[in-house]
């Protein structure tokens, strides 16, 4: 009987994982969003080592599986993860939220500070500029990895460490080591933390493999490599017919974009 691998996430990594497993294991891919390549539009909730439970517009989905692959991507670090102390005012937003809200016109800061120098920071700077920001200050603790769109309304400070937030109830200031910036929003776009929400598989789930792209800034190619690696590890976990052999060095991946 073919083993079953449940894959959470239908991004580059998750789909590369499914392709790599094709013909060697039965795969079931779930994704929160209605995306191409996912077998179920559903949010994975729990994993008990033998079955994955997900909830979606079609109801509860239970997938019996021999292994689980978590390929849910990454998000910027949060306040506590960055070690930011100080007040907890309105106006401190994670980059995905800042992008979404400024695109919806629900936030329009005039003088935001963006913390980070990677892809999320570049995306947030662009979204804030489109929403009418007068001036965007970028604080990039590890330097600029993905340059934001060039503009005279953007100032970049590389190598500064953000330390504390000021202002209450509305954000007013970001203090760094050696500098402070007045602002009306702080966007958290630094670092990459794995998105992991499946209870039972958050950090060391039974029969669980985590697709871990290593490139920063991320590339589609890197995500695909991570997905393919996860497929091999998952096959090893299903313990059986999957021999880890030379076949997995064969190029089963489509050429990178």
């Amino acid at each position: 009987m073919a083993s079953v691998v449940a894959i959470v996430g239908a991004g580059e990594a998750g789909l590369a994982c499914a392709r790599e497993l094709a013909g060697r294991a039965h795969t079931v891919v779930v994704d929160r969003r209605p995306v191409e390549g996912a077998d179920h539009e559903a949010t994975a909730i729990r994993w008990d080592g033998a079955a994955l439970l997900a909830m979606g517009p079609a109801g509860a989905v239970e997938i019996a599986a021999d292994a689980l692959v978590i390929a849910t991507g990454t998000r910027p670090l949060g306040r506590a993860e960055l070690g930011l102390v100080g007040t907890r005012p309105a106006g401190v937003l994670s980059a995905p939220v800042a992008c979404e809200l400024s695109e919806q016109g629900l936030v329009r800061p005039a003088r935001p500070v963006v913390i980070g120098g990677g892809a999320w920071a570049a995306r947030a700077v662009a979204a804030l500029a489109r929403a009418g920001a007068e001036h965007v200050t970028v604080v990039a603790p590890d330097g600029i990895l993905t340059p934001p769109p060039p503009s005279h309304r953007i100032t970049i400070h590389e190598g500064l460490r953000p330390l504390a937030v000021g202002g209450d109830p509305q954000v007013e200031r970001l203090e760094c080591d050696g500098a402070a910036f007045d602002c009306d929003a702080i966007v958290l776009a630094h670092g990459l933390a794995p998105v992991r929400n499946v209870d039972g598989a958050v950090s060391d789930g039974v029969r669980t493999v985590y697709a871990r792209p290593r490139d920063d800034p991320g590339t589609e190619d890197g995500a695909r490599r991570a997905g393919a690696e996860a497929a091999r590890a998952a096959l090893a976990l299903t313990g059986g017919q999957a021999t880890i052999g030379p076949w997995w060095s064969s190029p089963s991946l489509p050429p990178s974009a």
Partner: protein
Amino acid sequence: MRDYDVVIVGGGVVGCAIARRLSFTTARVALVEAAGDVGEGASKGNTGIATCGADCPPGSLEAELVTRSSPGWEALCASLDTPFRRIASLAVAGTAEEEARLEELGAGARANRCEAEIVTGERARALEPMLTPPARAALHAPGDGIVDPLRLTIGYAELAARNGVAVHLDATVTGFRMSGERITHVETPDRVMAAGYVVNAAGIESDTVSRLAGGEPFTTWPRQGQYWLLDREVGSRFRSIVGGVPTAESRGVYCVPTTHGSLLLGPTARDGTERRNRATDAASLDGVFDAARRLVPELDRRWAIKTFAANRPASEPGYRIGIDPYRANLVHAAGIRSTGVSSSPAVAELVHEVLAAAGAPVQDERTGAATALEAVPRLFGHRDPAALFAGDPAYGDVVCPCEQVTAAEIAAALRMRVPPRSADGVRKRTHAAAGRCQGAMCLGRIAGLIEAHG
């Protein structure tokens, strides 16, 4: 003509508990709160411990009210759709000196008629495997529990509102009108309310309220507490509340599992002067973490999902409950320092008795008053998600994946009588955005749901 028989000033856990109690009577009641939601002060930043009172000063009003509240938590929280679990606590002695103080603590618990037993270090580790190896002994208090203090406060207010209590938010009390020894009106920026009686449950601002009313002068000040919130990856492994041995000055730092499975570390206890200062600082947070790690060495900052600070209302003496000596229709429920959650049910009963004795029309119980809120089923931890979905397809729409909060639960929150007005209000009612990504995945959607609701 009076607008209200009783106006309660302050929408924290104490004011809301009083509002619920009075809502069972025929009195016309209003609750006025300066902030845009109930539970915005100390009620939103505390450990969530519902203590049985073992460590309260024997013979104090605090001890009496906390111990009187304790047996009722299961029934009360069930009626308010509020999570509660009686998980016991361990006050752990690591040194000979602390072990000696454990005896005093045990004697205090006996004086308060609380079930509590001094156990060996070995027994303590059997009760709580997360404990540090060098524990010498511990006081085990099986009656201690954990409650969701936000849902408790909101539940009190919601039930009160269902029973007709008017809840006025963004309503800072700016003054009072008097006639002789009595207050006649309560003034807020938007309205002036004719009031028969006024209850001062303004927490850290209760001295201001007393001063504005021409009542007894006293002082309240902020005792700041800083906290860490850790992921339920570690929190769910705890069985009990773990703390050190309290000193006369402070109860010290606890590791408290929350009703959602996460873990709180804290608080610090630093008297301050800035009432609005809710800033954390690195040195204090380091101190909390170090203290927690002395109890549970394997705690690691990689589990940290949030740090925050809140001010509890300190006053000397604490627990100032009763009629003001200068204003015959002003009842204080002030100086309820760190045990406001734990004592709130009995404080509300006591304030009701005080009002009744003073002649307020609160004696008669209202017929047909609701005594419970209907429970909103939650996906998180639910045994039968398919049945939830069959009842309401919005349970298939998981808005917050970290805390597994669905659109059905958020819609129920938005339909409340005391509804959320912000994403933070949704968080307080549903736990959405309270998890490990702190809303990075869902706050945009939640803002949209609030906007769409209007």
